[in-house]
């Protein structure tokens, strides 16, 4: 540019860009931010204190969902979306990116938030006193997660991860006066701080070598490093930086070996918090993983077309890291779930295992990205679909744990013995949810697994990273079989075993407010297992950003 820099033009240009381009695409986040302010404001004014903060939060979440939905609807149809990389627009001068994937993920997150607030309202944690704190933390973390899904800059990656994590640390300790909860919170915070530090160090290494934090520009620089020929010292630093960045992402994903916090936090914190961490946090982490891996290995846009071939080593590196981590995470999660006696701990390991399946899909997507972009988009679709079904399955599972805790005063699996005698409805709902988590048809979990496995097979038949993809397919298949055992054990206890003599608490009928919540969450699991065209079409739109 030959023009001298004019501060005035620069400012007005930025302002114009922000007001006309960025902010209209940022409405769900704005809705969340406004709700947080409103929640805190209600606390200050005595009159507004009478207002139930759950309702305020629900209203805000509904607004966010509405805007996210409008944005998703406004996307161009599939063929066009695929041609324009999902309607990709960089917003806020390249810090964030809006495309079909962002729109889809925000819909998932905001939709989850609405269901989640209803569920927590019914389950009674938080109580009225804690409501404002709890919901502003939840909304704040969700805001961070929305940013994770649309991050386009390593600085933003770090900011978003921290924004999602810090409220989560506080949430883990929301049950005041309970030792286990405080211990969970401190463990989570310490672990999270460590991971954040390592990630920040990795980011600084990457930024130092490549001279930028803007992900697409980084891809350009990476291509130049690859073109430069024989690996020099900078490749070593880049690898190290990439691995350290992966540590931060793996912590959010609770991928092995950075999963140690997960069972302890889930066991110590309330089931409601577990639900939030297990669904929303996981969805955002997977989205961020896709974002970073894609932006560095397969940048979108016309300008990037020339460097796709050069970036093959970058993609191969991320596929290897993600695939190996996925295989280990999945296996270890499933094996460790065997010995659990506490339902929340079992679900924690189940969450870890499912992170493994999700990462398998991501690995397939990155592997296919170079040689077969259309197939890669299908793999991203599989992951997006998985997240959509996972929302219902896992939220329902934690809702059942929470409601049963309210009745039975226990979260031990053994305390569920013989529940089928008194509360057959809830046992049927649990069966639907857990069998869907195993991945058996005709339930949604099967379709999700089927789609992920089919991406792996497509990668195998395309011949990209064949050994790794075969490994993942075999590991995924075997894990499905071994996961059967511990999910069925819960059902076995509920149905085969005799109820204890001294059962506290009354029966749990489905015709009740908690029963209605459980039904509302379990029915989609069944429906999406049979009629999955609709969700799949939406997920395809999300995947369009990759083609």
């Amino acid at each position, binding site marked *: 540019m030959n023009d001298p820099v004019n501060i005035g033009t620069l400012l007005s240009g930025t302002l114009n860009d922000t007001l006309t381009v960025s902010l209209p695409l940022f409405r769900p986040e704005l809705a969340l931010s406004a709700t947080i302010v409103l929640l805190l404001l209600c606390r200050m004014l005595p009159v507004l204190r009478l207002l139930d903060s759950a309702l305020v939060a629900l209203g805000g979440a509904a607004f966010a969902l509405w805007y996210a939905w409008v944005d998703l609807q406004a996307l161009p149809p599939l063929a066009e979306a695929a041609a324009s990389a999902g309607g990709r627009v960089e917003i806020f001068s390249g810090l964030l990116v809006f495309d079909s994937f962002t729109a889809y993920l925000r819909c998932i997150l905001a939709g989850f938030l609405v269901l989640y607030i209803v569920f927590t309202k019914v389950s009674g944690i938080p109580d009225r006193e804690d409501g404002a704190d709890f919901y502003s933390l939840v909304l704040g973390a969700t805001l961070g997660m929305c940013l994770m899904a649309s991050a386009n800059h390593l600085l933003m990656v770090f900011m978003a991860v921290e924004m999602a994590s810090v409220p989560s640390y506080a949430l883990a300790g929301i049950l005041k006066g309970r030792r286990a909860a405080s211990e969970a919170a401190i463990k989570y915070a310490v672990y999270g701080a460590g991971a954040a530090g390592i990630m920040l160090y990795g980011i600084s290494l990457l930024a130092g070598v490549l001279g930028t934090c803007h992900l697409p520009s980084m891809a350009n620089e990476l291509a130049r490093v690859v073109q430069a020929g024989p690996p020099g010292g900078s490749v070593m630093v880049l690898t190290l930086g990439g691995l350290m960045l992966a540590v931060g992402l793996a912590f959010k994903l609770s991928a092995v070996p950075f999963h140690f916090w997960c069972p302890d936090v889930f066991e110590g914190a309330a089931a409601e918090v577990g639900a939030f961490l297990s669904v929303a946090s996981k969805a955002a982490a997977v989205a961020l993983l896709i974002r970073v891996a894609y932006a560095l290995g397969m940048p979108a846009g016309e300008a990037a077309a020339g460097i796709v071939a050069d970036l093959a080593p970058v993609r191969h590196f991320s596929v290897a890291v993600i695939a190996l981590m996925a295989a280990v995470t999945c296996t270890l999660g499933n094996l460790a779930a065997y010995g659990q006696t506490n339902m929340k701990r079992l679900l924690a390991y189940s969450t870890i295992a499912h992170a493994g399946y999700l990462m398998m899909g991501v690995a397939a997507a990155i592997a296919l990205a170079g040689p077969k972009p259309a197939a890669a988009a299908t793999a991203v679709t599989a992951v997006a679909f998985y997240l959509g079904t996972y929302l219902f399955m896992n939220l329902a599972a934690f809702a059942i744990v929470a409601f049963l805790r309210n009745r039975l005063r226990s979260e031990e699996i053994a305390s569920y013995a013989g529940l*089928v005698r008194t509360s*057959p409805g809830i046992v049927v709902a649990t069966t639907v949810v857990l069998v869907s988590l195993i991945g058996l*048809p005709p339930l949604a979990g099967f379709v999700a697994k089927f789609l992920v496995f089919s991406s792996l097979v497509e990668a195998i*038949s395309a011949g990209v990273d064949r050994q790794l993809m075969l490994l993942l397919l075999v590991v995924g298949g075997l894990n499905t*079989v071994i996961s059967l055992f511990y999910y069925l054990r819960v059902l076995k206890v509920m149905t085969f075993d005799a109820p204890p003599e001294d059962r506290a608490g009354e029966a749990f009928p489905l015709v009740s407010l908690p029963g209605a919540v459980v039904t509302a969450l379990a029915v989609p699991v069944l429906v999406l297992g049979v009629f999955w065209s609709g969700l799949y079409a939406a997920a395809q739109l999300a995947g369009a950003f990759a083609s």
Partner: protein
Amino acid sequence: MPPSASLVQPALWPLSLIVFLPALVAAFLSLPIIPKAREELIRWITLGTLAVVFVLSLWMAVPQLFGATGPAQFQIGQPEMQAVVKLPWIQAFGIEYLLGVDGISLPLVVLTTFLSMLAAAASWPITKHVKAYHVLFLLLVTGMLGVFVSLDFFLFYVFWEVMLLPMYFLIGIWGGPRREYAAIKFFLYTLLGSVLMLIAILMLYFSSDLRLLSPEQLTAAHVVSPALEAAAQAEAVQAIKTAADPVHTFNLLALAELGQLPNSPFSTSMVWGTSLEIWAFLLLLIGFVIKVPVVPVHTWLPDAHVEAPTPISMILAGVLLKLGGYGIIRICYPICPGAGLSLAWLVCGLGVVSMVYGAFAALAQKDFKRMVAYSSVSHMGYVMLGLGVWSAVAGQEYRWEAWAQGVNGAMFQMLAHGFSSAGMFFMVGVLYDRVHHRNLDEFGGIFNRMPVYAGLAVAVFFAGLGLPGLCGFIGEVLVTLSSWNYSRTLAVISAFTVILTAAYILWAIQRVYLGAEYKGPHGDHLTPMTPRELSIAAPLVFLAILFGVAPQILFNYVTPTVNRQVQTLAAWTRDVHDAPAPVAVAEVGK
């Protein structure tokens, strides 16, 4: 096809009702409309539903009985798929709601509806959680029927898995003392098999390409519905032929056409130096033989059969084991013919090993029900041998008749075993309900105490033994004869196994029914058969005799379809497999 028009397909409602009526009634029963305490009503509703389903299946299978011949009814002697229902389901993957019956599946459907009805009648002694039991039982029936009529691999897999959970609970809640162990073992074995099957399904799907098929093949496989008008058909064919990317399919008939092409996509793509066809065949075979079951993956069967309640044992032996055989004949051989040819020794070998091992194991059992369970392993070995004898090869001048004899025999054996094994399990159950033990050494003298029962039981056991004039004989003799062309050793072994079979069955009859008097526990409970029990046992005995005397009743259905499949595969062996390579290349070129 517009959706409004597609809902008036002639076969849509009969076939869909046969499959889904049990599930609908199960959903109705699980609603709190009928109180749990009305156990008798729940039993009658279930029995009535299954009777309706049985009559519906008869209406399709034996139109003569009902006078009218609608388009949905089966035309005997026609080998093709009939009464096909085709609705789009998941368009992104080309998954369809594609149902149909032919001479292989229709007899199995009728067998299933018939045995389900009898098993519902045999469920009267179940008194624990009656409502839950019947809901699960009806869901199980839907799963089984769905597998037999699905022509879409995805749909097939869904139904295949739908059976697992009800069966797990039916064994685990209403079973015998070791029920939990038996239930989880059943589930783990089957799920392992089905995961391998899923991998094979995906491998086949992603290497399939409908563009390789001719317009005639596309119509024959119901990829393009033959019900459409010519112009619409041509348009649909054109859309497939001109597609830019490979058009993948789950359609079982189209996959079979693809698998039998010269240079089929399954035989040309390699995984680890072995063709995909071999891998897919092996993975599918493992999934199916776990269900059959063959040695060495049979160990779930004695546990599951012994622990399951009597009606569930009847269904397990009568229907579930046939699903494995059906899968092999419908999926493994037509889709992966090359692998079937080169692995024929494996299938036949597994069959003969199970045959002999099952017979010896049955001989060694002290538990009456366990003995019957092992007899199933032995009898299903004949099915495997009959299916596996790929004898139409160069040395045999590609004569398909001998091979067709084996496959027909295997099909007949499946059907006959369905009646005889369900009958045997029921007979054991009748005795167990009275004396509450199954120890073979503590019986004796039942003939004197329960003459009608003993007479029927001996007839059923003779049918299992394979006595000429009873249904068990036909299948065994056809299989043994046809295996002579394939391998004399195997034929001799399988002929000698008949002696073992005779030994364990006659010895069991001697120990249980003959003898001076009953000395075991609960002797005073040995009351004569009730009318309900009689009405279950009598039809089974009648059919065992009928099909033994007039096997052509079944062969009329089975033979045209089986012969056509075998003929096609024999021609495939001659033209594609054994042909010199240049011919195959020329075929591709045109």
